[in-house]
């Protein structure tokens, strides 16, 4: 049982690292066509409920971090395709799973983790520009805890820290853009930059202005090379770069990073999709 939990957690960790890497236009305002579904090794299961509404969830995550995302397309706005994305997740079971003694313990098990609910809203605008598909997004993240949340309940690692910190700060903002360009018929690239802020978090008395506003911020950037073998299978590889402000100062990381050999390995992802009849 212990081993199974460990495997699940490692898988989930990879999902966070690779998650939203890219599947078929999940970053853009596009909605999956009705009855089409997609899933990747580290990706959520997505399902086109109607021509304007898409559901998605991380199936394996569901048991340790119940989550659901709805994406809805809207009427065009100034030449941009527009969509909104609404996500809800409950991270407590997952955090309790990694709050343990011994190897794999990310959180001190003597600290109580209260029930918490995370909510995220994004507005996505997409349009073709200069031979590329460009998407802009912006939104708000809200984190609520039912009881006092000990400030030590966090994981000071890239990608994880700023997502969990929303529950300490209660709110945060995110914005960013994605650029996708076809190189050949089957080969394309994707580059994105995301910026998130937790206003007022962990600031000093002497801080003011922009420093106070940004609080603990993070930049995430990724670049991917995508080979679309067929309509049902594609292969992705690339890197992710994270720069952020943490309680100990700022830090940069290229992910995934294999610490024991001090070397970088490319992220690789396989994805499948098909339409139900």
């Amino acid at each position, binding site marked *: 049982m212990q081993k199974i939990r460990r495997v699940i957690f490692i898988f989930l960790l990879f999902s966070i690292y690779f998650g939203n890497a890219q599947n078929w236009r999940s970053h853009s305002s596009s909605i999956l066509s009705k009855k089409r579904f997609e899933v990747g090794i580290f990706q959520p299961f997505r399902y086109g409920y109607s021509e304007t509404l898409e559901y998605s969830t991380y199936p394996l995550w569901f048991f340790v971090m119940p989550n659901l995302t709805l994406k809805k397309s809207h009427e065009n706005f100034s030449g941009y395709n527009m969509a909104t994305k609404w996500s809800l997740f409950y991270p407590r079971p997952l955090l309790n799973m990694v*709050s343990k003694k011994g190897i794999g313990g990310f959180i*001190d*098990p003597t*600290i109580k983790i209260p029930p918490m609910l995370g909510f995220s809203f994004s507005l996505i605008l997409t349009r073709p520009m200069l031979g590329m598909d460009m998407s802009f997004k912006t939104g708000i993240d809200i984190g609520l805890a039912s009881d006092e949340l000990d400030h030590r309940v966090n994981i*000071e690692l890239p990608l994880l820290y700023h997502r969990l910190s929303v529950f300490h700060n209660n709110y945060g903002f995110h914005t960013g853009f994605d650029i996708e360009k076809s190189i050949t018929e089957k080969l394309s690239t994707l580059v994105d930059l995301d910026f998130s802020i937790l206003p007022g978090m962990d600031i000093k008395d002497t801080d003011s202005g922009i420093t106070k506003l940004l609080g603990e911020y993070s930049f995430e950037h990724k670049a991917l090379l995508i080979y679309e073998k067929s309509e049902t299978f594609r292969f992705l590889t690339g890197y992710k*770069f994270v720069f952020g402000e943490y309680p100990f100062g700022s830090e940069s990381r290229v992910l995934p990073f294999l*610490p024991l050999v001090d*070397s970088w390995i490319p992220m690789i992802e396989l994805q499948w999709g098909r339409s139900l009849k």
Partner: protein
Amino acid sequence: MSIIHTIFPLLIIMFNIGCEPFAKSYSSTSNPKMYEADEYVSPTSNQDQVKVVTWNIRFGAGRLPWFIDSCGEKALANYDSVEIIMQKIADTLNVMEADIVLLQEVDIESKRSGFMDQVQFLLNNTNLNYGAYASMMEVDFVFSDGLGRINTGNAILSKFELTEAKRIKLRLRTDQSTLVQYGYARRNILKAKIPELSQGTKDFYVVNIHATAFATDDTKKQHINKYLETLSDIQNNNDYFVTGGDLNSVPPGSVTDFCENDKCDGEECDGDYENNEAYQGSYFEHFEGEPDILVPLYNSYESAIDLADANLPSHYSHAPSTSFKRNNIKYDRKLSYLFTNKTWVNGTSRTHQSAWEISDHMPVSSMVMLGNR
């Protein structure tokens, strides 16, 4: 083309700053991190006699039942309590009127102590002006028990400017798996020069060490040998030094088995010194000659606490933090030492046992005589 010329160097920079190892390793000698107090305080003491203190401050956790060393459950201290204890440590150093302080187990950005830079805190809250810090363990994230990020090590604080500071690498333990060893303590000797205390043509050095605590192989012997080598280099150059630290060794003639005092619930002291974890850090005869490991130091240099007095209860400087709760023991052995190749001023050497609640180690202090200045 110009885009490639812009993007390529950016990528090189990004990979360089983003691809650092999770646990830092060191070359045989490296540069420590240097500090200065936010406000300089002029030394007012008599510079012919300088007060030296050594203290393992246990990262400001006081007597917390920590999971590594005291049968505890907790990996992280309460951050408010760390601030209170660090202030008590600063106050104690001020009361002692310390001129030079050798610290062990000082955190500068560890989750367990609220990411406080304890070197900077002590400089800003004492009359000490300069600091040098050498990390013993610098790991971005320890994936165990919720310990998280850790950066802990040795520090020298001084009223006088420190120069030519060096971190001297000590051998790693050989009784651990590669994975554990990767994220484990990388102990060191921290050495610095104080030009203001030079004696004519002779330089004056401060040397701080924290030797291995839990090794069951001969790592401790290697650490003490390297320490002796470092001190003899100074001695052979006809220079002066004060030195000390947490040697994790008992004085010659001491009891060597503290297992019954230190053991946790469910542990047994069964005589299996090599394999039974209850003997790690509580038994001082893991290799031949360990009980006499400090004899060369006592023979070669002047000890603040004479060998004849070293095993007196009034000079005990340590007991694991849970010993008081479990066995009503505040201190039961001496692990912290001060030596010099100059002279200690008679009657000034103390083991400050009244500070027993502030750390699981008590400070040892003495006044070194710097005549003929």
